[in-house]
């Protein structure tokens, strides 16, 4: 884990309201693993805002780090205004990466909206491991992500403008009806509601499934106790998203039912 100022190489809107940010950090690049995140401040634009904001590491290219984010509030707005050459303050890599146990052959990546963020990094990793990859991407409407490093993408849109009409979990369910996958493992990332139904689908089908959760964080490093998620069992009621996650086996945790 390092805390450092890095200078932006680029920060571009690559699709409607979606930004790709890139900066150089050898120290993060060499230690990061897929599923981990960074906790970030846009030093030159942030000052009204107190806390850092967590973002998944979207891809590592050489010594460059890429982040993918949506403007949803003041912090992401400030981040999007930061221009190449300006500095941001980065803390990470943080959290538990996606687990690779070698027990699966087909990796099923399921993303709701910006949930695609950690998947380019995971895809690179899985390709090295020679896993078969299939990626389900859900969004409200037509959504162009060709420039992202994903494999074998199956789209689902609420309005049917691209691929399956409906949500991404329904699209996966239909796919699983129609296809048989060899030794699959699901990796899910997206809004809590979507993860919650993905978790139920995986458990119903008895499929191995890991989820990357979001949560309101103050510190990102386990000192504020601000980011609990309910555990399914054990003596401790809550796990911390930042240090026990953000990746969890879907059976470990109890998400609020949608």
């Amino acid at each position: 884990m390092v805390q450092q100022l890095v200078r932006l190489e680029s920060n571009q809107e690559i699709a409607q309201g979606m930004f790709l940010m890139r900066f150089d950090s050898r120290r993060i690049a060499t230690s990061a693993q897929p599923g981990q995140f960074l906790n970030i401040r846009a030093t030159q634009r942030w000052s009204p805002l107190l806390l850092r904001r967590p973002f998944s590491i979207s891809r590592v290219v050489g010594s460059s780090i890429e982040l993918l984010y949506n403007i949803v509030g003041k912090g992401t707005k400030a981040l999007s205004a930061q221009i190449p050459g300006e500095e941001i303050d980065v803390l990470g890599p943080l959290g538990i990466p996606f687990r690779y146990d070698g027990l699966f052959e087909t990796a099923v990546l399921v993303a709701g909206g910006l949930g695609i963020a950690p998947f380019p990094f995971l895809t690179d990793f899985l390709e090295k491991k020679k896993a078969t990859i299939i990626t389900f991407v859900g969004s409200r409407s037509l959504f162009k992500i060709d420039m992202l490093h994903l494999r074998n993408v199956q789209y689902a849109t609420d309005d049917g403008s691209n691929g399956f009409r409906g949500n991404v979990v329904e699209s996966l369910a239909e796919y699983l009806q129609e296809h048989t996958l060899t030794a699959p493992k699901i990796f899910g990332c997206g809004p809590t509601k979507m993860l919650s139904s993905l978790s139920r689908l995986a458990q119903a089908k008895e499929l191995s499934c890991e989820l990357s959760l979001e949560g309101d964080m103050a510190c990102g490093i386990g000192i504020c106790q601000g980011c609990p998620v309910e555990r399914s069992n054990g003596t401790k009621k809550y796990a911390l998203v930042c240090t026990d996650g953000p990746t969890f086996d879907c059976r470990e945790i109890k998400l609020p039912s949608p």
Partner: protein
Amino acid sequence: MKTSFSIGNVEFKNRVLVASGTFGYGDEVKDLVDVNKLGGIVTKSLSWKPRDGNPPRRIVETPSGMLNSIGLANVGVHAFIREKLPYLRTLKTKIVVNIAASSVQEYCDVLTLLDTQEGVDAYEINVSCPNVKEGGLNFGTDCRMTREITAQLRPLTRKPLIIKLTPNVTHISEFARAVEDAGADAVSVINTLVGMAVDVRTRKPKLSTVTGGLSGPAIKPIALAKVYEVAQAVKIPVFGIGGIQSAEDAIEFLLVGATAVQVGTMNFVDATASARIVEEIREFAEKENLDDVGKLVGALDANIKHSVLQSWL
């Protein structure tokens, strides 16, 4: 340059500590910062049994501040002694263990157990806790109860006993005087202010517990006024707490009468800030040609005759 100060026979190497609940148990950040640079570490509040804490959502950012409703989630005093204290013992900084409880008896039990342990240098008592006997009313807003807790704990230890006061009262100096009178060695001022936030779309409070505690730079002016009020009222040392982000902020607290400060919320933003503040206070004192940082304590140049005007805001 003298940077240290003492409470009883405990010598703190400098006047910057990290506040309870904002630095974990010291081990989480050891990759980022040399914790031995700090004047001391105040632990997360400990209760007798482990506490799960409140349901999410526990954190809300507000303008220049944050609300929290952690619910005193903590490992409990037994696990603390087993799992956390051994590491803390290896540090070359003072360890102040903060205690929270829901009955006077629980405060006494936790302190008594801790007092048998090596590596605990002092106690800070969090009185912003629900008094279960009195239906959950806050101990800390009841001056009689605050005094009672102090009086009961005092004979149980020879180590420094620091009472951490809540700012959510009309005259905080009354509380400070009461605990001084009951034998406290110092007071910490302030804990968080009660606040809330609402999601207008769902019409629900943003925090699961409706209200929570406000901290961060937003509250610094209030904290300074409370510390000033307390420092005028008591002779025992005061730890100044609330919204400290920089050495300048910390020095403001020293000037109004704090013997030392604790940095809280800022640790979440930048875990290296507290150690940097230690350094920058020393530099400031050097520039001011002081031989002891302590010469800043209470050195406010205030024209007292104006104080009556304060009410005519």
